């Protein structure tokens, strides 16, 4: 049984899978099969398999596709957009997939576009991913050359074209409605929902936005079926997932593993445990906008519900490890600075709240805070929480702050009572230039 559908073509690091190699390994079989299926049948398959969005939100992909209006009265123009704006701190999984096996993504996109009836598909890729963008453009040319996509798709009258849209460095573009604004040539700020993009998205037309890894799940699912897909997972969720680890572990990296692989297994077997002399202090399960979890939570299976029940989110599934020689307040300050910088400025709790949180954290980190500042920070973070803003940036930013205040209470207090940061001074934050 195929157990590594996402990475089976990936060999040597840095070497791209060409179309020839991809086809030799059974590539585009899922696409050829899909062309003989009814779109509804494809959507149902994806829904039944329970493919959940790998960008972090974990929404059922088939269900998302099913919201696109169908039937005679539906708007004829629809769009598929691949969200390749991977910018979540600590996340490096989509880069791996796009640089090494671009055709897998294209095949997944072709199937998705066919299912929702989109004749044009965009890959919205962050501007810093030069190699991935170039390799995708080459792959598109290759696929067009073989009539796998384009205006003369072999064995079908369906027409489909791809375009790689290179962004230019803006975190909020990862939010799907901000991404749509950006693609339209507007300033990248989120839109109010409803209407949801599936009904009225890009240029007012039905639009589905899916993450790179999500789309890479589709080809083999269509080829091999729901039962195969579900069996891949070790827990509630089916399929595999690119999990990763960074920070001061022995062997940082990314690996395709069954959904539901215990976190301990990822960190100890695959990441090789902590570097010598260091202990694991805490970890962010899936990027900068997930809550910290402590070492008592290592036996959690990495799936959406289990990590959710433990008080965090699986997010992107790439784990950031905090060791016992690194200042947790410093790390939270680092994350909060990032979110403050990347706030688009539309909602007040985010635009104004984040810089205040940075100021408070800076004061704490430098040992200049008063004990009551901790409550002020907690209050500030709560105001950025869910329900107060149009998108998830501010609630995401609040997650590491609020969880850190609980998990590292002693460290926060130590900074205040000692009047300085008790950790390694070399890592002290550099104040921003005025």
């Amino acid at each position, binding site marked *: 049984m195929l157990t590594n559908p996402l990475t089976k073509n990936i060999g040597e690091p840095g070497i791209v899978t060409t179309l020839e190699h991809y086809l030799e390994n059974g590539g585009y079989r899922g696409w050829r099969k899909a062309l003989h299926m009814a779109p509804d049948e494809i959507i149902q398959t994806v829904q039944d398999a329970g493919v959940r969005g790998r960008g972090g939100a974990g929404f059922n992909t088939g269900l998302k596709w099913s919201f696109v209006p169908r039937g005679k009265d539906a708007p004829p123009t629809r769009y598929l957009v691949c969200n390749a704006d*991977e*910018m*979540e*701190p*600590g*996340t*490096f999984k*989509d*880069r791996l997939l796009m640089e090494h096996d671009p055709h897998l993504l294209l095949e997944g996109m072709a199937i998705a576009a066919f299912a929702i009836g989109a004749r044009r598909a965009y890959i919205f890729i962050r*501007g*810093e*991913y*030069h190699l991935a963008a170039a390799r995708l453009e080459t792959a598109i040319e290759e696929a067009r050359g073989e009539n796998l996509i384009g205006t003369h798709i072999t064995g079908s009258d369906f027409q489909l074209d791809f*375009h790689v*849209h*290179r*962004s*230019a*460095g*803006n975190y909020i573009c990862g939010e799907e409605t901000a991404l749509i604004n*950006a*693609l*339209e*040539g*507007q*300033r*990248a700020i989120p839109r109010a929902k409803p209407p949801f993009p599936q009904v009225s998205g890009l*240029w007012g037309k039905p639009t589905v936005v899916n993450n790179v890894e999500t789309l890479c799940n589709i080809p083999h699912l269509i080829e091999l079926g729901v039962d195969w897909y579900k069996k891949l997972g070790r827990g509630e969720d089916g399929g595999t997932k690119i999990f*990763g680890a*960074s*920070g*001061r572990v022995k062997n*940082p*990296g*990314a690996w395709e593993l069954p959904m539901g692989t215990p976190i301990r297994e990822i960190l100890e077997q695959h990441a090789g445990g902590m570097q010598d002399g260091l202990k694991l202090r805490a970890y*962010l399960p899936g990027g*900068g906008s997930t809550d910290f979890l402590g070492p008592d939570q290592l036996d959690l299976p990495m799936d959406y519900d289990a990590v959710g029940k433990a008080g965090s989110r699986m997010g992107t599934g*790439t784990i*950031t*490890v*905090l*060791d016992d020689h*690194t200042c947790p307040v*410093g*790390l939270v300050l*680092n*994350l909060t*600075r*990032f979110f403050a*910088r*990347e706030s*688009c400025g539309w909602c007040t709790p985010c635009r104004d709240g984040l810089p205040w949180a940075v100021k408070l954290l800076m004061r704490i980190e430098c040992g200049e805070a008063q004990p009551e500042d901790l409550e002020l920070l907690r209050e500030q973070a709560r105001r950025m929480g869910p329900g107060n803003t149009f998108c998830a940036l501010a609630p995401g930013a609040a997650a590491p702050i609020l969880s850190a205040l609980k998990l590292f209470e002693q460290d926060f207090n130590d900074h205040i009572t000692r009047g300085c940061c008790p950790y390694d001074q*070399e*890592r*002290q*934050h*550099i104040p*921003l*230039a*005025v």
Partner: protein
Amino acid sequence: MSSTIAADTIEVMEQQDTGPRSAGRSLNAEEKRDIDREFSHYEDRGSVALEALRVVQKHRGWISDDTLYAIADYLGVSPTQLESIATCYQLIFRQPVGEEVILLCKSSSCWIMGCEKLQRHLEQQLGIRPGQTTPDGLFTLLETPCLGDCDKAPVMLVGEEMHRHLSADKLDEFIQEKKKHHADQSAD
């Protein structure tokens, strides 16, 4: 960008901008052709705003006010609309930048792996703060959000090239190499 460029640095850069890169308030044929190529991918002219900014920046190095007006004119959008797009992307430069723009990753994994120390080192070696350009116009230093290479942290991106597993020694080597490269080029 919260950082500033020293007035004399801007002066140096603006003087350089009077060279062949600068085309003033209108776009040249090559720039227009490069923008035209993008239209077919989008539904309306205004949608290529970012592509147009990028294309012209490739030719001119950065987007001056005059350049911004010229692009807005060509696309048929208002300059303020275009400015609102230009300023939301870190890779669109509304100030002159050096030949080598160093994007030092400052995100969580790189921070854990010591990027603040590397930033201090770069600042000392180059004599600039983030957002500034060296007086010789060679280097610009910018802090950047996660570059998505966290298992090889600390990292930076210069041009299209990723530099991984950075150390102070590697940074010194990089600076020397680039200085030599540009000295050789200007000698030719």
